[in-house]
């Protein structure tokens, strides 16, 4: 198989999806690849019986199982699914997992930006063909939304609230009538959505108020708020697992140092909550303290150790990488990070040599 930096979910977990499909006896909504129960197993983990024995299905989304269950049922119904939450809470990942499991495709995506236009959402034209042959199906460039409708698969709309409100509203008619009209094509221009079509949107709560969704559009979605991981242990597990996957993909053959992962998980958790494990209040940085950011910092530290010949990730390098991740939006965040290190030094200096080394590197915070 060819190698990619980030293969789509349906490629990455092709074996698991195949095993689930083979053993799936549950009722499926029309055009779905798996039953809701099998989709749940794919995302939340479990095992399936196959002729060659039991196959373990890895857990891919941590945190709120009920949210996943609600999301699956929403997609099986007539409403779209809108995943909202802080950046880095795995909304996109969940959206990809759901699409891959339900439709076998996770790449039918519109990326919302300030420059997204209605053409990108509905359809546009191949102008050479348009000029030579006039408005015809051949000259039409379908958008992911149109593809989703025609094939009966999900269309994913990332960062929907980055898109201007009037552009977002072009979804309303599609979602309420399940019809997209292409007037240029005349009688052939009426596209009716096939069963299985639905929309998964994601929206960042940090963008709240930038392009507020209209009430009419909101009514066509069920909303699910994806919360950051609240359990430090779980966050550490996620960092370790994700870093392992990323290291494997990058041919970095270095075992994950769980102690260093813990440093990072605790730091992120305490800065995010604004309170240390001992109950001391610390100032929250303005930057997003997401698990995804923590994974990135950790992987950066591991890469540093690997390429510069160190035997293990260096806590001092971790501190340096932390500056880049935390001090992005506000210059006060550096002072907040320093203050956290001072507070943590008092509380955690007896926690072990790694912590001591880590907190000792606070002089690098400048």
């Amino acid at each position, binding site marked *: 198989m060819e190698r990619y930096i980030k293969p789509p979910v349906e490629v990455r977990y092709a074996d698991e999806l195949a095993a689930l499909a083979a053993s799936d006896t549950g009722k499926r909504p029309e055009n779905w690849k798996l039953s*809701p*129960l099998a989709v*749940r197993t794919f995302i*939340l983990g479990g095992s399936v019986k196959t002729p060659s024995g039991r196959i373990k299905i890895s857990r891919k989304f941590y945190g709120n*199982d*009920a949210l996943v*269950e*609600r999301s*699956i*049922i*929403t997609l*099986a*119904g*007539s*409403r779209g699914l809108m995943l*909202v*939450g802080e950046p880095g809470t795995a909304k996109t990942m969940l959206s990809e997992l759901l699409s891959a499991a339900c439709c076998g495709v996770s790449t039918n995506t519109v990326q919302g930006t300030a420059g997204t236009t209605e053409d990108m959402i509905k359809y546009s034209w191949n102008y050479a063909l348009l000029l030579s042959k006039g408005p015809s199906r051949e000259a039409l460039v379908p958008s992911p939304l149109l593809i989703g409708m025609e094939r009966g698969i999900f269309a994913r709309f990332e960062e929907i609230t980055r898109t201007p409100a009037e552009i977002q509203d072009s979804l309303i008619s599609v979602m309420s009538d399940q019809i997209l009209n292409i007037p240029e094509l005349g009688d052939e221009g009426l596209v009716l959505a096939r069963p299985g079509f639905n929309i998964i949107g994601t929206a960042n*709560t940090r963008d*709240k108020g930038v392009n507020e*969704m209209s*009430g009419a559009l*909101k*009514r066509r979605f*069920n*909303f*699910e*708020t994806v919360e950051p991981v609240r359990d430090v242990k779980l966050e550490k597990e996620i960092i370790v697992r994700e870093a392992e996957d990323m290291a494997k993909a990058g041919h970095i053959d270095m075992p994950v140092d769980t102690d260093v992962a813990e440093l990072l998980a605790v730091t992120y958790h305490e800065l995010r909550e604004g309170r240390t494990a001992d109950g001391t209040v610390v100032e929250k940085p303005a930057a997003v303290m997401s698990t995804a950011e923590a994974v990135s910092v950790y992987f950066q530290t591991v890469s540093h150790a690997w390429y510069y010949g160190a035997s293990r990730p260096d806590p001092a390098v971790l501190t340096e990488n932390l500056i880049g991740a935390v001090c992005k939006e506000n210059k006060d965040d550096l002072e907040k990070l320093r203050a956290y290190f001072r507070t943590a030094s008092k509380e955690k200096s007896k926690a072990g040599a790694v912590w001591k080394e880590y907190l000792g590197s606070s002089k690098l915070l400048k």
Partner: protein
Amino acid sequence: MSSLSGENRLLFFPVRHHSPVCSYQLTRVIEKYRPDIILIEGPSDAEELIPVLTHEETRLPAAVYYFYKDKKKLVSEEAEDYKCYYPFLNSSPEYNALLAAKHTGIPARFIDLPYYELMINTSEKSGLRRAEKQDYADDTRLTQGDVYRALCGRTSVRGFEEFWEKYFEIGGLRLSPEGFLRQMHTYCLMTRENADPEELEADGTNVRERFMAARITEEMKSHWRVLVVTGGFHSSGLYELVMSGDVKPPKLHTVPADCKGAFPAAYSYEAADALHGYASGMNYPYFYDSVYRRICESGSHEGAFDGTALDLLVRTAKACAKKDLPAALPDVTAALSMMRGLAALRGVGESGIYELIDAVTSTFIKGEKTLSSSLPIDLLKKLAVGEGVGHIGDKSRVPPLITDFEEQCKKLRIDCDTVTPKTAECGLFTSAKGLAVSRFLHRCRYLGTGFCKLQKGADLRENRDRSRVREEWTYRRTPSTDAALIDHTADGFTIEEACRTAAHKTLAGERRCEEAAKTAVDCFVMGIPISDERQLLTERTAADGDFFSVGGGMRYFETLHRLRELYGYEDESAEELIGLCFSKLIAMLPTMANLPKEAADGCIKVMKHMSALTDSILRSRAGELETALRLMVSAPDRQPAVYGAAMGLLCRFDDSFRVEAERALGGYLRGAPEVMKQGAEYLKGLFSAARDIMFGENDFLRMTDELITGMSGEDFTEVLPQLRLAFGYFTPQETSATAKAAAALHDTTASEIRFGRVIDEGLYAFGKRLDEEIAEEMT
């Protein structure tokens, strides 16, 4: 243990309190097993109340209210009072067992230890002696330990309640009675095996089970088929004890009859909610109660959960609409589809409360889920908990105080059948009903029922807002309302009687005139005459040697006297008590001349009040006050402020005291700096009683000016607070006139004195900058 065969002489039915499935399966078991007697876990001192609970007119939720007063110190040295509730809902298996026994004509008995024995046999901070524990129906045992955690993990549910609903409440409805019994026994046995033996001893489980086992053994001698309904945790323990054949019941203590008791009381869904704080029973009692009612009405369990969840969903949508939250028909439809879909995905037979909450979360909350946007969930949960309050049909066992409370509420149109807070507005002087409502609510408040709270209105006790002519109350009936009324049962048959007795007890315990007078004020607002307490009040006043307490008391009595006609208060005792207080104060007044400085203000206040009374209701006694004041001013040592006030008051009786007052000020002026400073205090006292002295034909203004200008800056700063107070008694016009006169003394204008010289803004800024620059140069 689970066989329903007629040959099985002893059948244990383990229950979870308020569980509809337990009720459903228990009634089926009773039909099939046909027991000769039903024994139920419940404190045996309430056995006589069983007919009251099953009375046709009794409406649930209701409870048995137990109390025990540990006067003999059998529980602890603290000799505390204890109380607890044993609540019953329509879905309570114990209640349905009682009902089934009544319908089939077989006896039903409560077999647990009497409540007082439960308390005696429970260690501190354990079982029913936990501070927050007021509910006998305790299921926490079923939800503790590692068993349920492991089960929740394996079955992918979020917690015990969801686990219970899925596998027992909904799953259990589809089982045969035998199958359900087996499932319950298995689960309860697992939790029992995980229990700490020391804890079983400490929380009284062991001794209770010995007692219950002895009762079961005893009943088996006279009945063939015995059905035992107990909390699931006890079944296996009891079974072993009974089967061992050697049960020695614990010896019961002898407790005086007036120290213990059990009464039926109205209860509320809100109090029955496990999330309410007692950590027992089930969450969302109204929801589960409705499920059971639905089963009973339709005669089938099919669709009971789905139907109840749908009802609640619609009610939630309506509640949302009332709050202007978007919850239209498509949202309800989407929620219904979500609810059913989740039930299918999770393998739950029908939609339970957790599917309903999930559905509302997903479909009603538009946008990020935050505290403020979660209102639909809050509304749903509130509806699922329920707001209703029960009613006891058979009044023969209901304490008369509760009966009177309900009758009064009905008469005054006060809604006491809901726990939803209500408001009542009463115009005190516009209608007889307004005053009657006010008095009733004041009485309820006085008895400590927690039923009502005065939000707005006159506070005669604190002498605040006396001019208000309306009162605004919030009220709501909770189980603690009934509990408080039951606690006052011995005080009388009616609310009024109980208040009268409680007031009498309070008065009897008071030693200070002021506190006794406050109780008289309480009686006043409750519309209870104090004529019967006149002797007690007289004694308290006569025996009180505290000048300030008697002074405070006199103020309260005057309030009562002055407002009696307005409030339609038919009692004339206050006037007499005012006279008595006045006599006491006259006798003590001369000794107050040399008070500590801190007490001076309080003394002046009483003196002025006495003076004011001699202008109104005690005109004939002005002479007595004058004599006492003359004695006061002739005392060798005098506190300057009190002295000044006495001089000021004497000016009212004899104009020559104006000259005396002037002389006295001159004395302070001519004194050493310390004495001069006392002059400011003297002025404060004098002006508080007779500020008009400043505007007479005398030298007061000049002398006051001398006093102030003759002081050093430091001394002036020290006495400034006293001077501020002294001039604080002046009206704005008087202050203006004083400033004008003082300006004339210094060849300037009044505005110059009052407001200072106007400085140009630019000049001020220049000076400021100059100051800063010099300061900078110097550093």
